[in-house]
């Protein structure tokens, strides 16, 4: 199982345009990351808040709903966050258009 996870993570990391992949736990401590620690921690902290807010928004509208994925597209790249109670999976990609 773990090997599969590793395999998938590796594949994701090696995809075209992917700048970084991060898995951080609920406290913001990185579990897996391809970026440096400071960047990871920064991303983790900021995205955690944003994810909470997004989740709160979604659930406020309908409490039976829940946030499953969050994508932030900026000029330079796209940040994709898969949130969970225990972790955050963050991938930063530079989509080549």
């Amino acid at each position, binding site marked *: *199982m*773990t*090997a*599969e*996870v*590793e*395999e*998938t*993570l*590796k*594949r*994701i990391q090696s*995809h*075209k*345009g*992917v700048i970084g992949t991060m*898995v951080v*736990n609920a406290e913001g*401590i990185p*579990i*897996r990351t391809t970026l440096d620690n400071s960047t990871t921690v920064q991303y983790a902290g900021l995205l955690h808040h944003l994810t909470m807010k997004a989740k*709160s928004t979604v*659930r*406020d*509208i309908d*409490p*039976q709903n829940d946030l*499953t*994925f969050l*994508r932030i*597209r900026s*000029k330079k790249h*796209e940040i*994709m966050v*898969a949130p*969970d109670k*225990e*972790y955050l*999976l963050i*991938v930063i*990609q530079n*989509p*080549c*258009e």
Partner: protein
Amino acid sequence: MTPGKHSGALARAANAGAWRYRDFRGGEKGWWTTPQLVATMPVSPAGSHKQQNFRLNIATQPKKSISFFATMKATSVKGYTGANQSRMAVSKTVLIPPELKTAEKTNPSIKTMQVFDINGTDVTPRPLYHPDPLTGTAKPNKLLTSQEGSLGPEFISSHSLYQNTINPSMLGQFTRSVLGSSTVSKSSVSTSESIAEDLEEPSYKRERLTSFTDLQVIRAAPEKIVTKEDLEKNIEIILTETETLRFFDLPTVMVSVESEEAEKVTQRNKNYEVLCRNRLGNDLYVERMMQTFNGAPKNKDVQCDKIIMEDKGIMSTAWDLYDSYNAVEPLSLSVKPSVVESSSKTNVLPKDQDQRLPGSTTEKNSETSSLMDIENVILAKIHEDEEDHSDAILKSDKFHQDLFFMERVLMENIFQPKLAAYRQLPVLKEPEPEESEDFLESAKREEVEEESKKEEEEEIHAEESTIPANLERLWSFSCDLTKGLNVSSLAWNKTNPDLLAVGYGHFGFKEQKRGLACCWSIKNPMWPERIYQSPYGVTAVDFSIGAPNLLAVGYHNGTIAIYNVRSNSNVPVLDSSESPQKHLGPVWQLQWIEQDRGTTGDDKREILVSISADGRISKWVIRKGLDCYDLMRLKRTTATSNRKGGEKEKKDEALISRQAPGMCFSFHPKDTNIYLAGTEEGHIHKCSCSYNEQYLNTYRGHKGPVYKVTWNPFCHDVFLSCSADWGVIIWQQENVKPFLSFYPTTSVVYDVAWSPKSSYIFAAANENRVEIWDLHISTLDPLIVNTANPGIKFTTILFAKQTDCLLVGDSDGQVSVYELRNMPTALESGRGDIIDTLLGPKSNQPA
């Protein structure tokens, strides 16, 4: 003493009964209710602490002009009377102060006001207040006069208990005025005494309300809205006595002067008088003041710890409330939905996890293991707990799912234009992003929205008319695993249009390598969702219709395996390798057929039909295992049309095997009992499921093995076949001769397929070209020709159902997705008329 209470006293004084008053000096009517009776007992409010024993002397009643009506039943009255008596006795001898003289003078002049009750009793209320004579010189005079007047001969100052500022001196005035005796300057005692003297009679003593110059307390009459009628009405005012409030009750004792005790009483009165007189300077009576102990206040400070204040804010949100309500549900319920969720997310063909190859190459293993080592080292630095926790995170299913989705999202980003083109959706452009269908959300759901209006890029728009139809390569399904393998079969999933099964295996016997069957998703072109490996080459794949998660894979060794795509395991659900009736040759084609089984009573039973090189067309039924029934044994047939010599033919039939290897088959779209089977001989037999020995018909036209035969989806009389003799032939069902044949190149045509959109269009894949033919336009030349890269052969071809895309598998393990562009619009009407259209002007002779 509030004025309000005066009424009580007065009432008492009045001794019940109705009052009737004639006149009041002072004028106000309401005044009588709050009379100020000066002559109250000094006992009560004035703070007089004198004991007074007043005896009323009844006998001495008649004064000159005064008749006293003792109004008060109060003891004070009596007390007073006693004193009065004594006083009176004394007073007679006392010099009359000058004021009193005036009082006398004024006495007769003053009108008296009298209030009589029904019985004639005088119930004149007596004033409660007598202003202090010492306060002003003039006043006393007035007072006296007023008192004089008020008192009159008939009235006595009453012992009203209600005094405002009792000044016994006031009392004195009263009496003085009445009596014309005593002095103003006398002490309060004397005045009280004198007042008491006034009250001689135990009976009602009425007093005129005298002084009210200083204090007039008027009880406010209750507010009433006075109407005109009210004003003119005769109002009967009924005065009633209120309850008596006793503040002090010192009963008056009256002793007759002629009684035995009279002397004692008088003596005592005298003594008392003396006492009062002497009080001021007397040593016996000392005015003392006591100081109460006031507790010395002490300030005490206590210091406490700093009270730490914490602000706690909570935002109540709708979901917070929802969570709290649902928090009481048992854990099992919470577990179930998550399971349900995960299964619902993976809908028809769930691919919730990427599959780990059990038999992955060693290189991969070493790669991952080295990675693992590095990561282990990193992990070792982390705290134990966190490490455990992080591992738990990584192992969690949710993480897998998230990874899965993330990968798809990435794919979508990478392949967005291609996927959009595939799905005929607008292409997202930067920096002005058009609205793009969000693939991720649709990726989550297995149903994908399609069929929006096709928008091409601007260049194409401009040049639409000029660019001919072409194939544009969008992307290709390929990965490391599939590199070098030959794509042998392609099949769409029946329910999920995004799922593609690809079988990898070589055709030739000598080229056999390991085989691979992969399930690819459009949403992830870079890694297959399922990978099923086998040592034998895969030669046929097909998805089931009724159970879309079942994938049948046919191998080169004749084995048929059925996989459940829903699960992650690599083990097939069913395997025919143990079956005694398994195929002995490569299974060249597999197809799931839903067949009416009218005879046996089951209807729409799904069966798996396979054709293999051992000349059998078998029907596989899943009961307890794979059960095989032969539908047909393909016998070698001779060229019956060339019956030149029966004998010779028979001799030629002494062949190794009487069975002709079947290469392909195709069931009639409408009638699932009829099917076509192509053999290695080049014959196409029309067979029926009812007969497993006889052919219904044989179509001879090909010279080489027929690799593919397929019915036209719209026109059910026409079918298409391709063979190794470089030719593609269109047949008509009734005609055993070819209808149209094409020999575009000198290479083997591996695969041919009708377009699902038009009955005129079909695609053919030969070794180095993919050709799109449009019979409507031309029967001589293909519409589009796409040449392969050198060294790569196109081996399989498959149309995408909903979109204008074509999948082409090649010998390098790549399945390329091409988009058909600028196709001439298909004529709806032409679907059924292909034969008629073609029959007339263009009918080729069979070659």
